[in-house]
């Protein structure tokens, strides 16, 4: 082995996580999709990195960046976990600007030595190098929503464009977003109850936007609109979205996001229902 490679090898051995990426935007865009709180917890295994953000113990967003997205990806331990300030991480990742000049890519090398050590980022664009040392924090326990595919009652896969407008124009004076999923009419309905009155948006079952429709039972659930609104960030980036509810009324939104190199990544939102829907209104 040539001496230089040997040296790099030795250096790499001291890190429990090493990941390199030719285009940093493949990572930063996905992370932006879950950036609705300051802090995030990162879990790395040999399969890739999962970044989790939570709010109010009611909503959780997970971004999955699988190992294949990276040009180099090494995890020395079974799993590596740390908590990090996501705002700072994103500022560092986009230090050379979030909309790069055409033809220039920012390359990234990310290293983490282990518990108590900072996360090191080496970014390079056009011969200019930025080194970031972000202090990591004690990982916090994340929520387990116990959302199991066997308990899923209703499932709809939509092309994201169908939901994009609806979500960006949600009546924010309404406290809740009510989602109705049913094998019969109205099939899939989004309702808000705001100061200016109620609004209902129905999606017919045979719409072109509807990729899959598997509803077994009528379910009407309400979710805090303030908790769901941040998912718009992921929606905007995604091409398809899968909407599922389980027997407890928990909501899962899975967004399929295609990055600049055509690879697919997933971002997932879980949200617990707001309250029991009063009989009279359902």
């Amino acid at each position, binding site marked *: 082995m040539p001496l230089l490679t040997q040296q790099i090898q030795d250096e790499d051995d001291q890190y429990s996580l090493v990941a390199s990426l030719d285009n940093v935007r493949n990572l930063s865009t996905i992370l932006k999709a879950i950036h609705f709180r300051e802090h995030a917890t990162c879990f790395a295994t040999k399969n890739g990195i999962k970044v989790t953000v939570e709010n109010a113990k009611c909503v959780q967003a997970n971004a999955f960046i699988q190992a294949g997205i990276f040009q180099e990806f090494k995890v020395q331990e079974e799993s590596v976990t740390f908590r990090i*300030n996501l*705002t*700072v991480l994103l*500022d*560092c990742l*986009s*230090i*050379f*600007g979030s909309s790069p*000049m055409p033809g220039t890519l920012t390359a990234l090398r990310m290293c983490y030595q282990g518990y108590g050590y*900072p996360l090191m980022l080496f970014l390079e*664009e*056009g*011969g*200019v*190098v*930025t*080194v*970031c*040392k*972000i*202090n990591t924090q004690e990982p916090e326990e994340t929520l387990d929503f116990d959302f199991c595919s066997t308990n899923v009652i209703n499932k709809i896969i939509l092309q994201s464009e169908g939901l994009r407008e609806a979500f960006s124009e949600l009546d924010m004076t309404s406290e809740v977003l009510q989602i109705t999923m049913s094998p019969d009419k109205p099939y899939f309905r989004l309702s808000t109850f705001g100061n200016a009155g109620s609004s209902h948006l129905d999606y017919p079952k045979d719409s072109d936007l509807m990729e899959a429709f598997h509803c077994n039972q009528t379910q009407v659930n309400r979710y805090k609109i303030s908790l769901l609104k941040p998912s718009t960030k992921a929606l905007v980036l995604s091409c398809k979205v899968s909407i599922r509810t389980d027997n407890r009324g928990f909501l899962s939104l899975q967004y399929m996001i295609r990055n600049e190199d055509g690879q697919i990544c997933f971002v997932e939102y879980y949200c617990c229902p707001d309250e029991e829907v009063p009989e009279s209104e359902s």
Partner: protein
Amino acid sequence: MRFRAKIVDGACLNHFTRISNMIAKLAKTCTLRISPDKLNFILCDKLANGGVSMWCELEQENFFNEFQMEGVSAENNEIYLELTSENLSRALKTAQNARALKIKLTNKHFPCLTVSVELLSMSSSSRIVTHDIPIKVIPRKLWKDLQEPVVPDPDVSIYLPVLKTMKSVVEKMKNISNHLVIEANLDGELNLKIETELVCVTTHFKDLGNPPLASESTHQDRNVEHMAEVHIDIRKLLQFLAGQQVNPTKALCKDVGRSWSADCDTHDQLARDMAEEAAQNIPGDQERCLQAACCLSFGGELSVSTDKSWGLHLCSCSPPGGGLWVGKALGKEAWPP
């Protein structure tokens, strides 16, 4: 006290508008100094507070087709005015594609700088838009505070990287920290550093090149890799960078033998021509400016010189044909703050 001036040439008008825009971005109020052969825009924030100061010089004959002035007295043939910089830039907004621009000193109940713009119209009669900008005449006893700053010999002077990259990096750093450390050496290396409890970020630029130093001898025994550093307020630096009219090309002039020649790092023919022309036109007095600023750069390119006792000086020179010299000093912050 009398002053009237007229610009007819479109390019000059454009250049003048750009300068006023730049100044409006830098500060709310500025001082305009009018003397028989020069116009100066002066900003004088107190350096002790880490403020931005600026000395911008326009050779009147490079801009104006007519220029008449009469100062306060024969021996002090100058006028100093204070004006709101945005008012001027707003008044000049209408001057795009104008046929002519007239500026004069008037007294309409209160002292004004009257900017009248002659616009083209479809019919033969032209339209004239007039702006009266209220001003304050600065009395003689305060002139001494508004003299050309002395730029001391720098420890290090270096060309800045592509402005867009630099701006983007500094902008992101501003989100994280209020203070920035700039380091540079005579080997063409420049580092931007921030350090907080959460994160340390360092951006390394290399191969930037150093302008020829004015006093070569004092630096001969210096280690070229030695980093000179200065601590500054990020917002002030950003304010300064934002004021620059971004020009993505880079052109350097190098001292070859006894004459100046152009060495362009650009494929843009226009920039190349400008550089060639600039190199030929550098007269003796221009050299004084350049030496004082310790940089020769134009077309939006900047130079930083760092000096321990004075803080950071950022200077940019536009093509000498344009007759503009902007030198800015950002005061050094007391460190730790």
